[in-house]
């Protein structure tokens, strides 16, 4: 009983944290982009623009939810929900900090702690692409359709490399349980040191996973107007945006858990803060890249994924396998 109550509380807290986290990631991104681009960014609503996310959220919620004639109503309505659902679900298995002891209970700072946590995380994060493909297809708009096609083309080009890039960590830790992976790093040092190339590959594919510059092909505003979400408005549009930003937090969280020691850090700060700091640093890199780089062309992305990222991560995976099994 108490376990179930605790679970519901944890789910609600996690969703609340992710929603605020998304809102402020967006604000921070807009402010930083402003500074990169000789602008101020949003700074009018509240002190230093801190209430801007609230205003944006309110605006999005109150806008009319339009649906184009000829759109497939069912799929059109479900697609953004699917994206958001997938984005939120991944975070269920990420451990945000060391277990804490409260009222005689040991509370794990994650919602679920399955032994195949890593696989679940990847399964759910791949599910998110269906939201894009279906949304683009159901909109009955040619730009949306192209955006949807690009999303699926993009997915098949980075997913394999992404999966292979984390296999090394899996083998070194000897488990797919994310919490145990962090404990393994406590014993043997952060996995980024032996696995720096897979980390870079993971990060590149993570950018592709979240559809951000230079891999923002499905929405490519200078080519496809807004890509898959051209026709979306109001809260459904907001869902796509929320999913994109939560995805950004999620892939950063996964990167931190797998390569950067999760919540580990010197003890003068609580573990959960270390986790947040590491995620924030990775998110800053996301924003930095967005301010600097142009977009890939989608056929170039495919050949980059298949001909560069995949062989490198595969070779590194074989090398790690040989090392772990004692062949080297």
């Amino acid at each position, binding site marked *: 009983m108490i376990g179930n109550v605790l679970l519901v509380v944890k789910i609600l807290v996690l969703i609340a944290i992710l929603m605020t986290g998304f809102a402020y990631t967006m604000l921070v991104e807009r402010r930083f982009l402003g500074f990169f681009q*000789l602008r101020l960014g949003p700074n009018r609503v509240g002190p230093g623009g801190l209430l801007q996310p609230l205003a944006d959220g309110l605006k999005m919620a109150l806008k009319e939810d339009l649906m184009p004639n000829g759109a497939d109503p069912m799929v059109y309505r479900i697609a953004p929900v699917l994206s958001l659902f997938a984005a939120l679900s991944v975070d269920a298995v990420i451990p945000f900090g060391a277990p804490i002891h409260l009222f005689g209970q040991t509370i794990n700072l994650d919602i679920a702690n399955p032994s195949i946590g890593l696989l679940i995380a990847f399964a759910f994060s791949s599910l998110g692409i269906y939201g894009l493909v279906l949304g683009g297809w159901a909109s009955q708009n040619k730009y949306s359709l*192209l955006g949807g096609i690009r999303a699926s083309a993009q997915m098949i080009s980075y997913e394999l490399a992404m999966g292979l890039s984390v296999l090394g960590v899996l083998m070194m830790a000897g488990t797919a349980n994310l919490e145990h992976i962090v404990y393994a790093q406590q014993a043997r040092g952060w996995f980024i040191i032996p696995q720096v190339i897979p980390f870079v590959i993971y990060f590149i594919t993570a950018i592709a996973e979240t559809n951000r510059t230079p891999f923002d092909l499905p929405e490519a505003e*200078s*080519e496809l107007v807004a890509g898959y979400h051209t026709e979306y408005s109001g809260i459904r549009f907001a869902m796509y945006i929320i999913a994109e930003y939560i995805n950004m937090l999620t892939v950063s969280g996964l990167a931190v858990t797998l390569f950067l020691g999760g919540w580990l850090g010197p003890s003068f700060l609580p573990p959960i803060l270390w986790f947040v700091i590491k995620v924030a640093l990775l998110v800053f890199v996301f924003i930095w890249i967005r301010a*600097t780089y*142009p*977009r*890939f*062309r*989608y056929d170039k992305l495919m050949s980059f994924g298949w001909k560069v990222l995949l062989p490198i991560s595969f070779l590194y995976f074989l090398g790690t396998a040989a090392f772990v099994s004692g062949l080297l």
Partner: protein
Amino acid sequence: MATTESGMIDKETMIINLGPQHPSTHGVLRVRLELDGERVVNAEPVIGYLHTGFEKTAESLTYQQCNTITDRLDYLAPMTNNLAYVLAVEKLMNLEVPKRAQYIRVLFSELTRVASHLVWLGTHVMDLGAMSLFFYTMREREVILDLIEAAAGVRMNPSYFRVGGLAYDIPDGFHEKVHAFVKDFPRWMQSYRNLFEGNPLINERLQGISYVTQEQCLGLSVTGPNLRATGLALDLRKVEPYSAYEEFAFDVPLRTEGDAYARFWVRVDEIYESMKIIEQALDKITPHGAYTTSDRKVALPPREEIYGNMEALIHQFKLVTAGFPVPQGEVYQAVEGPRGEMGFYLVSDGGPKPYRWRARTPSFYNLQTLPIMSRDGLVADVITAIGSIDIMLGDVDK
């Protein structure tokens, strides 16, 4: 899907209208794309959304008034349009312009060329997806607009060059301002180059993309950087010098590849050449001196003269109410604008208004290469092609 009248799908291609409202068409260009997946089968520019009837309007304006129309053709490079027009009228009237005014014209022509190329650089790279550079180049363009404002009082549509010379003299302290700009500029330009030079993503998006041959360019009357990127050094400033350009030392940047990458670097190099000309022009321009012709039948008399001199008052009255007559005849005069050959063909029936006023605007001709460039490319390459042609819709549609 393209469908026949009966609603049946007749082929596996998709027609998509890129524009007229689209973030990357630089105005109101509409491109009718025929796509096979994302591969472009055919791209057909549909123009006319910004048609303003300038040529017909000009026939009911005096020669001085027409000047304001030229600003609005290619509104990113108003000074070179002004120059082409006033040179044409001056040629028709056999009018001598003071050397100092000619140098100032060169100075401002090159300043607008730099400003125009900066806008192109920012928007082109933004079309490729890198958004920050746009803000940086706009900052530098702002400095140039400030310089134009200091001299002409207007930022965007200055009409600064007038038949016979200039509208006003350059203000006090103008040299220092331009010197400061010339001094700061290489540092800024280097900071932009750090963003795009050798960037593998930019190179990948430009190299070998939207290729066009020299023969195709010549066949379509393409001029300017687009032609020079195919290996033909046709620059009117060198070939048919006007406004004392023969006294300036500068190179014509040339590339032979004929792709978007070549056009990119021709324009970037041209910015540096223009800065060279600006420096030389500054040395030649004395702080004070004649800025317009002394012919009172063409140029307005100075204000103080009007109050004390009967003849000056009459001249002023005649020029403002009726304009000046231009001898019968026809003339074509072209200058090298930032986008290519900017020319005016004027026919005069001897009156104060042109009988025929025809603008040869470079973007109109340059745009015709879009179908050649985009064929068999991807949608992303169409955007690259539009950006690298450097079209200006005010210039295309007139």
